[in-house]
């Protein structure tokens, strides 16, 4: 094995991915928490005999935990995310509790997708999805790219794939 230091991805996502994630993922958990607290709690208290103030605290804890998680995850996730396109390899590193570092040889990619949801478009963001021929876990996503950077990456990949093609 080569003793040389392994190249690491160093490019970061767009910072505006944090408000995007907050809005996209955080909103839903906020809605769920609010529903559970303002709708679920009175119903449970009314129709379930086993209800006691202790359960109140548990439910409150769960709701607050959910909201806290939704608020805390995006900045942490953003801080961890690195990607890079180095020497025919697409590298990415991400994750908070479960950290993953992925390396995909560009020429092994089957196709490359550029995905932009409505909310993503609002933020001027794009997600790059590359597919390999593997069966499980064959799709690799890089979220939170600026639209121009995503297109650039895609073109780079397509070019690298097509470069050595026999005519």
């Amino acid at each position, binding site marked *: 094995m080569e003793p040389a230091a392994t190249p690491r991805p160093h490019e970061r996502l767009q910072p505006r991915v944090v408000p995007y994630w907050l809005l996209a993922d955080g909103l839903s958990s906020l809605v769920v928490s609010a529903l559970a607290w303002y709708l679920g709690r009175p119903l449970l208290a009314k129709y379930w005999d086993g209800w006691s103030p202790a359960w109140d605290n548990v439910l409150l804890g769960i709701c607050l935990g959910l909201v806290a998680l939704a608020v805390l995850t995006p900045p942490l996730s953003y801080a961890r995310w690195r990607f890079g396109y180095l020497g025919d390899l697409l590298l990415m590193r991400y994750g908070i509790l*479960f950290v993953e570092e992925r390396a995909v040889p560009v020429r092994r990619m089957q196709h490359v997708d550029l995905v932009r949801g409505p909310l993503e478009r609002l933020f001027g963001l794009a997600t790059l999805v590359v597919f390999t021929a593997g069966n499980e876990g064959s799709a690799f996503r890089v979220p939170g790219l600026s639209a121009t950077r995503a297109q650039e990456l895609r073109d780079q990949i397509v070019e690298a794939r097509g470069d050595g093609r026999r005519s």
Partner: protein
Amino acid sequence: MTDAGPEPLPAGTPPADAPATSPPPPARAEAAVLARGHLHPAILILRLFDVLRQVGFLLVVGLVVERWFLVVALVAFLLQLGYAVARYLTLEYTLTADELRVREGILERQERRIPLDRIQDLGLESTLLRRALGLTVVLVETASGRGVEARLDALSRADADHLRDVLLAARSERLAAAPATASAAADGVADAGGAPAALPAPAPEPEWLVHQSRAGELFVRGLTDLRLGGFVITGFAAIELLDQLGFAARIAGVVDSAQDWVTQFPPVVTVAILIGVVVLVLGFGVVTATLGNLVQFHGFVLVLRGDVLQRRYGLLTTRQKTLPRARIQRVTVEQPWLRRLLGVASVKADSAGGSRTQGEDTSGGWDVVVPLTRLPDADALLPALLPGLESQAFAWQRGSRRLIARLALQGVVLALLAGAAALGAGAGTGIALAALLFVPLWALLGLLTWINLGFALGGPFLALRHGIVGRHLAYVPTARVQAVVVGQGPFAQLLGLADLTVYVMGGSPTRLPDLTLADARQLAHAIAERAAIAAAAEW
């Protein structure tokens, strides 16, 4: 290795059903037709049986209960039979130098084109009934991961053999025509210009016998094939069924009386009776497993013809499967604990065709390359599957010792959770303390895992050894790697450990657990770099 040609090729003599007289190609893109044919007429007899079986119930109802059911049966019979006849009449397959075309359908014509590049495996299967009629089912597998892409049920034996031989020859010609890509292009693009001009009948290449199973080996395979889990499930299902049928109470009564009957003996006899029952159950499992293995893998032969491996086996349902060596994504030498004790192993090869989880047999044993043999023999025949393996010296490295700590830590967490749960449920402190046993147990598990864990990168191969009581060896050609992932769970982050997962086409991913983070990163990079270089060379 001995040269054995048990089945001579029908070289240059195409069967009557598949005229090799290719019509002149209408367009430049259209390649010469190498084989063309229809299903064998005898399949109609089988279809007739099928249809009769399907309408049998209606027929019985019609005869016994209501006369008008006979009409329904007749209509259903005619419809089904008509469909079968129509399918038989319209299905036509064509093999050109570029692709395999299967056309069928009356109202909705469907033509399926499978480029030869994409064909991973070709299987021939023949059940007892089909064999009696001289029929063979042809299964075409592609890398789509869905397994069987096209199924020709059924051709005459001669047609099937001819199709296989022509297809293999055409493909090896294509590979030879593409420069420096002989090992190539599991995911290659179809090169339209590379079609060879003229393809005569396949040249008969010598066949090398790689492995032949002896009955003794299959017998041992059956003996060591303990599917106790299956037994427990079967027993449970049986009890449930009896419960639903209302036998439960009666059984409980029987059990009670049996208990009374047993307790009247001294304890020694009781234990003996219990052991006897267990032995009886185990014995039944061993006998069925042994018979099953003997029937399934009867006369197993693995031969190498050119660059293509071929397997032939089966007593009732005979199976033939080709596996181009270039398509092998991973080879595993598997030794569950019982087989490890006996020093025997089975060898499996993953092609890109289908996926499976480790240690499991796919139906029909499609991925089994060697059902069972002594470990040195298994090691000796690996180079026949992965050429170049014999010249690689693997410098085995161990995983990190910290993996024992990781598992012990998990044991602590488990013990705390279990203990708390036991106390919460109102169990005594004795039981709660017993939960502490998780810690040494998990530590022992970690120790065993660490002892068996090893990895090595030798030239174009990644080798992995793992197991707890048994042992599994896996070889992955790095050139076929699709992606490499280094992952760290929460415990692993705490201890500076990491898992390495290697993805190949089709097959299930290969995982190397509990390396140090630095080792994992270095290894991942080395593998990814080799894969990238190999991918670049294939273009």
